[in-house]
């Protein structure tokens, strides 16, 4: 049975798109047939992060409106054969997404894929609501910072009251906390909330801790999901998170700053 996973946060710029690309690529690398949908209508970016921007012909909205077939809009990843992406449109029409349209596309995708990842836009408006509405599981991307934690709490409230599962009284959406852009050095100095602080406050299970890492920018520059960069700490952390998501027991890494001598500190560059 195919599963729908929303990557959401409330707040913008916390790492949703990066995480959606990493999760999708990670699941696909583990052999699961995976598709990732960009719900950020008007601000298409997932194609760029996934490195397929030049192959976009038709998009999600074209399929919803019946202007293109789903098979025409889906882009098969050239590096991982179990991975596909459904890009969004650049339209400024806020009502381009409809609940019926989204449901139809998701139902069709369920025929061919094991996992359907929905990359949510920021906010709690139409686009974000539709991205989470049909979800079975939710990855809540949070930065260790007050406004991000607050917005995550709000979006958890929305998942619990306004998702299809909530409205139809089904088993609730399974929630996973993904703590992103974690800077263990700043945490150690007491400048940033610790993992335990965020867990105490949000009280949902932790699926992963993604370190702040320069490799994320490097990957997006070249259009490679960060899990495909074997030297990236963030990539490893995302692969661990995917493993935990699938039920594996994996210890958390990148929580404590690495011990480095003064010489290394001066020369050190993030991998």
């Amino acid at each position, binding site marked *: 049975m195919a599963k729908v996973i929303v990557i959401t946060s409330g707040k913008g710029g916390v790492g949703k798109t990066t995480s959606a690309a990493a999760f999708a690529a990670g699941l696909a690398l583990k052999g699961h047939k995976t598709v990732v949908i960009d719900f950020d209508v008007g601000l298409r970016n997932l194609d760029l992060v996934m490195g397929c921007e030049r192959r976009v012909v038709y998009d999600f909205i074209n399929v919803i409106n019946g202007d293109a077939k789903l098979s025409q809009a889906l882009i098969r990843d050239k590096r991982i054969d179990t991975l596909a992406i459904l890009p969004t449109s650049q339209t400024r029409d806020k009502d381009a997404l409809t609940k019926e349209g989204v449901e139809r596309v998701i139902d069709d995708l369920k025929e061919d894929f094991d996992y359907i990842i929905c990359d949510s836009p920021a906010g709690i408006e139409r686009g974000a609501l539709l991205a989470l509405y049909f979800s079975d599981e939710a990855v809540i991307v949070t930065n260790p910072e007050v406004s991000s934690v607050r917005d995550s709490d709000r979006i958890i409230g929305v998942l619990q009251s306004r998702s299809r599962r909530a409205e139809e009284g089904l088993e609730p959406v399974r929630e996973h906390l993904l703590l992103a852009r974690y800077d263990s050095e700043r945490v150690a100095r007491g400048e940033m909330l610790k993992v335990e602080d965020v867990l*105490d406050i949000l009280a949902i299970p932790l699926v992963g801790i993604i370190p702040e890492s320069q490799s994320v920018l490097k990957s997006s520059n070249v259009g490679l999901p960060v899990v495909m960069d074997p030297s990236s700490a963030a990539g490893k952390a995302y692969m661990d998170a995917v493993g935990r998501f699938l039920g594996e027991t994996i210890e958390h890494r990148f929580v404590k700053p690495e011990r480095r001598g003064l010489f290394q500190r001066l020369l050190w560059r993030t991998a």
Partner: protein
Amino acid sequence: MSLLRFFRPRTPPSAPLAKERLTVLLTHERAARNQPEYLPRLRREILEVIGKYVHLDDDKIRVHYESHGTVAKLELDIELPNQSGSVAVPRQARMAQPAAS
């Protein structure tokens, strides 16, 4: 202590304060979020009904909603003006007093 640490000016850690502020704020926001949407309207209508009999200031009626699983509890706390004068005494407090003659 490393050399870099030595040169860095020490400022008190701010993360504990962040956690405390978030805890307080989210306790409030969660309580407000779980209330039924009709609550403000209900409160206004109760105020109108009582207003037919006694004058009541807007802040003298408090509606508290609590939900635990399948049961929900609605508490109304209405502060009526004292019959004899202008000093308002909470209703509960007044009931505990000897009946006014």
